[in-house]
Every structure is written in structure tokens, then in C-alpha cells.
């Protein structure tokens, strides 16, 4: 068997992981249970994702021996499986340096995350979350953002971990809003410099590009962490596999995990490396999210 000892898999996988985590960043603000633990017969395919539920407290009643404040969880079935296929024939392997492949794997990691992210965003429908405003994509303005904020506040949604996922067209419209452009009004100095509104009205902003399902006509999704629960686990190959490498790659901070399966096909002289993500998602507390619909 040919042996590609020139392929520094650790380096390439790390490049993929960096892009994977960066692209998945908007999801990190939701309720997540990411882990490199294996799914399987022993562990099942169900994970309980903790939610940031309503904050409760009470007057001291003379004893501390009181159980309260149950931790809310949402059950997520890990049944989604996305993969990015990578193949390299012998001739290409000899003509490409390891460093050239690093940028390639970075892109593949981003592609995997984008696929996962868009799949999760299929939850953003008016069937799951109420609408807080409607406008054409090019006229998104503070009016809709304030309406969404007010709706969340009235629903007693915690004021922490709030996010605004805005489509690129809507974000472009926001860059034309005087209040955002004049950064001194709310200390965001990078609106024109970076071309992005990063924080406003208590929301962390993330710009997406056609990531919402077109049929759902979404301008933006304004939500708190409890709105969506996402679970992610490692899908290990069965015993008896003959992969050159089969391992999980996991981010140390978020736990975001994907698997690598590396094998060689003698018949075609091709080395295959598959990046795969095993995950599941579910709508959490539907009151914790609001949709700004688009009419165009």
C-alpha cells in the first residue's frame, strides 16, 4: 500500500477544526451540548441539552432545606450526519505540498460547519417562533430590532446571551442606518471599519449569507440561548475497521467535534479523507426566539 508519509494529518485536521469552530460560532450562543464522546449502543443517541430557563428566587423562609430551581433540559436526538468528502489521487499528492493542503482543509472545515449550521437553521420558521416584524430585506431597520427586543422582554426572556442572526442583505441595510453608522452613539467603533454591526440593543450580531431556508422568508432571527438546543457527538467507526486514521477532532473550548476517516483505495490510487459531523437539534423554548420576516 502506498503510504503518504508527507501528509501531516494533525496539521490539516487542526486547520479544518479552526474553520469549523469559527463558522459555527453563531451556534455557540445557543444551548449546546458538544462533546467528543462517542455515540453508540452504550451511550444511546439522546442527549439532554441544558437550557437557560427563567430566573427564579424567593424570600428566605427560615430554612435552607428546600429543593428548587430545576435545571431545564431539552431532549435532542443525535440523528443528523453531514460529511465533506475529500479525495486525492496519487499524482495530485505528489504535486501538492503539505502547506497547500492546509488552506484546502481549512475551507473544508468551514464547508462542513456551514452545512451543519444551515441545517440547524431550518428550525427558524414561524411554526416554531413568533414573528416580531415584517419588512423587505433592504429595509431592515431599528424598528424591527426593537420590536423583537420588546417581545423577548415581555416574554420574560433573560437579558443575557441574546443574539441576532441577520441575513447579509439585512445587515447591509443596517449599515445604511444612521444610528449604526454614527458609531459614537453606542460605542461600536467598527461598524464602517469592519463592515459589521457586532452588538446593539443587547444582542450579539452575526451576519449570515442565505443560510435561512429561502421558503421561510427570514430576514433575521432574534433569540436567546434557550431558543435552540444543539447536540453534537463523535460517530466512531465499528470495530474491525481498517482506516489509516479514524479519530475525533474537538475544540477545547466549545467542544465542537467532527470526525475524520482516512483511508486509501488501492484500486484507484486515491486517498480519501472524510470530515463528518454527527449532531442533532431541536427547538428549545419557543418564547425565547423571534423572527423578522421578509416580504421579498
Amino acid at each position, binding site marked *: 500500500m502506498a503510504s503518504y*508519509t*508527507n501528509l*501531516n494529518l*494533525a*496539521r490539516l485536521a*487542526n486547520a479544518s*477544526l479552526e474553520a469549523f469552530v469559527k463558522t459555527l460560532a453563531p451556534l455557540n450562543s445557543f444551548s449546546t451540548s458538544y462533546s*467528543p464522546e462517542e455515540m453508540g449502543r452504550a451511550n444511546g443517541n439522546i442527549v439532554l441539552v441544558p437550557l437557560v430557563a427563567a430566573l427564579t428566587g424567593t424570600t428566605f423562609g427560615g430554612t435552607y432545606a428546600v429543593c428548587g430551581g430545576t435545571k431545564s433540559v431539552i431532549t435532542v436526538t443525535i440523528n443528523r450526519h453531514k460529511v465533506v468528502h475529500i479525495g486525492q489521487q496519487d499524482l495530485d499528492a505528489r504535486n501538492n505540498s*503539505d502547506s497547500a493542503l492546509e488552506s484546502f482543509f481549512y475551507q473544508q472545515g468551514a464547508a462542513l460547519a456551514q452545512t451543519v449550521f444551515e441545517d440547524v437553521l431550518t428550525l427558524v420558521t414561524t411554526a416554531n417562533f413568533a414573528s416580531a416584524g415584517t419588512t423587505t430585506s433592504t429595509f431592515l431597520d431599528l424598528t424591527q430590532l426593537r420590536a423583537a427586543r420588546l417581545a423577548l422582554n415581555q416574554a420574560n426572556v433573560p437579558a443575557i446571551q441574546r443574539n441576532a442572526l441577520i441575513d447579509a442583505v439585512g445587515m447591509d441595510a443596517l449599515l445604511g442606518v444612521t444610528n449604526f453608522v454614527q458609531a459614537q452613539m453606542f460605542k461600536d467603533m467598527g461598524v464602517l471599519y469592519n463592515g459589521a454591526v457586532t452588538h446593539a440593543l443587547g444582542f450579539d450580531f452575526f451576519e449570515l449569507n442565505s443560510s435561512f431556508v429561502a421558503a421561510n422568508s427570514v430576514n433575521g432571527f432574534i433569540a436567546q440561548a434557550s431558543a435552540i438546543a444543539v447536540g453534537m457527538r*463523535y460517530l466512531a467507526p465499528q470495530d474491525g475497521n481498517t482506516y489509516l486514521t479514524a*479519530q*475525533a*477532532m*474537538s*475544540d*477545547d473550548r466549545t*467542544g465542537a*467535534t467532527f470526525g475524520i476517516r482516512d483511508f486509501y483505495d488501492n484500486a484507484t490510487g486515491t486517498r480519501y479523507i472524510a470530515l463528518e459531523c454527527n449532531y442533532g437539534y431541536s427547538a428549545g423554548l419557543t418564547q425565547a426566539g423571534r423572527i423578522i420576516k421578509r416580504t421579498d
Partner: protein
Amino acid sequence: MAWKFLNIGKANERIDALEAELAEAKKTPPAPAQSDAQAKRLDDLAASVATIGEQVSILTATVQKLDGSFKVEIARVETSVKEVQKTITAEAIGSRIALEITARQGQPPLNPGAPNGNAGNAELLKQYDSIQDPREKTIWYRKNKVAYDAAFAASNRK
């Protein structure tokens, strides 16, 4: 030159005497004396052969004795080699476990200057492979990226 014989008569007497001595000498062959020497020589040779034969026998016995000793010695050495091999295997397992423990503790690689030697390179690559937890693997790689990549490149230039 000094004159020995001034008297011809005395000279003739002397010549006659020598001729008579010569004639007598010719009558008695030296053969018996030579035969004795040869026989003695043959006896000596035979004795030497016998002596050598005895020595050969002694040496043969010695070789047989040593051969037996060698076999015992070889068996003892083979046993020792097996014991050493067992020890080396145990130490290798211990070394691998030590590597994993070292890596898990987040310590720097055992040989940060890995590109200097293949032994160090192999050690560094093994250290990465020994980490089982994917998150710790990520942390370790990012912390030691430069050294690891250099070690990997060096190990492939062999």
C-alpha cells in the same frame, strides 16, 4: 714455509705408513655406525609420533569438554537475552504510558528541539499519538505546533 722432512727415507716410511692406514680403513666400511644412527633416529621419530598422538588425544578430550561448556554457556546467554528483551518491552510500555501522562498534564514535549534528531522527532510524534482525549489533543497540538510540524517534516526527510 718450514721443511718437515729433510730425510727422504723418513718421508717414504711415513708415506708407507699412511698408505697402509688407508688400506686398512678401506677394508672396514662405516655402514654399521650409520645404520645405528638411522635406527636411533627412527626410534626417536616413533617416540615423537607416539607423544604427538597422546597430545592429540588429550586435546580431543579437552575440546569435547569445552564443547559441552560452550553449549551450557550459550544456553545461559540465550536465557539472559530473553530476560533483557522482556525488560525492554516492559520499559517501552512504561515509556508510552509516561508519554501519555506527560501529554495529559499539558507539559511541553519531552524534546522541544525535535528537528535536531530523529529520535526526538519520533518521540514528539508518538507523544501526540498517545493522547486519547480529542480536546487535549487539540490543546497539545496548538501549544506545540511549530515543534510538531518541524519534527514531522524532519521525519519525512529520512
